[in-house]
């Protein structure tokens, strides 16, 4: 397929399908040729998925994971956007807070797990706290950079029409920074989904992360491990896809170069 030419309709499905089929074949024959008894083949995983679906635990685990992400990530959005707008708006506040933010930011959320358990004990709240931390920083930083890159011409235009500071923030700065904020939100959701799995392996006893580690620990059911991994991948994709839909809303679409 030529990268310049527009792909024909069937090609858009055909080549990705071939790539997936090749991967499955490599997997299948690797399992067959090495004669491994531990690692599952694609067919084993398929039966694993069906088994999980029939036992209903899968839905409960998916529900628990999504619930933790919804609460932790939702809180990060609600707190992170105002904090980020404020830091972007006030150079003084940013000067004071930024160094601390820069030190906390590179700490992997995983490193917070012991701290989270001290604070909240083993349970939902520890996991939610970790997801909150993981999504908070990307959102705040996206807001700060979004606000500081609002073109001065637009600020001036807003001032010219007699807006007060709060009106300027609400009617010019926020909508102008919104595309960049949404990018931060999307990155944060991706990280939240990575972190929930890690947190559930240690801090709680339900959810998809727990399903992975529990399937291994209770009877080395690697077919279920890989099945759970697949579910994690698919749900992550769906989450990312839904945030991308938001980016196509007309009042923010101008900020995304490749959106059509």
């Amino acid at each position: 397929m030529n990268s310049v030419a527009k792909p024909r309709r069937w090609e858009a499905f055909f080549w990705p399908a071939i790539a997936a089929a090749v991967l499955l074949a490599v997997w299948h024959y690797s399992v067959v040729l090495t004669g491994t008894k531990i690692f599952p083949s694609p067919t084993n995983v398929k039966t694993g998925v069906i088994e999980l679906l029939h036992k209903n635990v899968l839905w409960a685990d998916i529900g628990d994971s999504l619930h933790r992400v919804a609460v932790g990530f939702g809180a990060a959005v609600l707190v992170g956007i105002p904090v980020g707008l404020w830091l972007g708006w006030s150079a003084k506040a940013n000067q004071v807070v930024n160094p601390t933010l820069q030190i906390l930011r590179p700490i992997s959320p995983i490193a917070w797990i012991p701290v989270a358990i001290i604070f909240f004990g083993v349970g939902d709240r520890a996991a939610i706290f970790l997801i909150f931390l993981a999504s908070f920083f990307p959102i705040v930083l996206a807001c700060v950079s979004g606000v500081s890159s609002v073109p001065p011409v637009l600020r001036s235009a807003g001032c010219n029409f007699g807006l007060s500071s709060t009106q300027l923030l609400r009617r010019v700065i926020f909508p102008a920074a919104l595309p960049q904020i949404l990018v931060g939100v999307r990155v944060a959701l991706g990280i939240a989904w990575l972190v929930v799995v890690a947190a559930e392996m240690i801090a709680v006893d339900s959810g998809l992360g727990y399903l992975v580690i529990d399937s291994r620990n209770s009877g080395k059911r690697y077919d279920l491990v890989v099945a759970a991994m697949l579910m994690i991948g698919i749900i992550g994709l769906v989450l990312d896809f839904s945030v991308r839909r938001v980016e196509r809303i007309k009042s923010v679409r101008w900020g995304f170069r490749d959106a059509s």
Partner: protein
Amino acid sequence: MTEAGAGQKMRVEHLGMVFQRDGEAVSALEDINLDVSAGEFVCIVGPSGCGKSTLLNVLAGFLSSTSGSVTIDGEAVTGPDPRRILVFQERGVFPWLTVEGNIGFGLSKLSRAEREARIAHYVQTVRLQGFEEAYPADLSGGMKQRLQVARALAVNPDILYLDEPFGALDSITRVIMRGELLRIWQTERRTILFVTHDIDEAVQLADRVIVLSSRPARIKEILAIDIPHPRNISSPRYLELRDELLTQIGLAYEV
């Protein structure tokens, strides 16, 4: 001067502007004195980088002068004000709002019905009918500038400041836009201060042309354009005034 010059609108006295750059004082404007009548169309020309835009930003209240004063209707200018709107060269419209949203931006204090009537009127004035729901990304450069002018006019300002508003447009669109602006000026009768580096643009549009020197900008010459509209751009008087301006700016008119 101008037939509409019933009263004095703006008085600029001994205006000076000194920037601090790397600890050094750089003078941008020096001893600018200017009177503008109500309804007058004044063009400001000068070599690029001379401080035309700085002057306009001071007059509009976005920058404070370091000496002298600007008074409008006897009132000192201390900051930006919806009674005088600055139109930028490009990217001045709000990309997250539709054409209607942009025109209505400064009208939030009006009742819904009044606002809608005002929006509809200015959509007509700048000929953007059929694009009311369009976003700026879907408009051409010329349409975006018309939208910016409409947004400015909608709040009913006394003065329009235009900072090279057609500078980023292609030459054909620019000629069309001049005609549109003259038509709007003749019906709406606002005072217009128009910065340009295009000599022809100045001679075609202005009642008076202010020629600035290179930095620091001083007023070198004020030229009254005594040709009635519509102006014939190959008439001897037009060419004479144009040559006069080119000479003032220090350009030979033989390439």
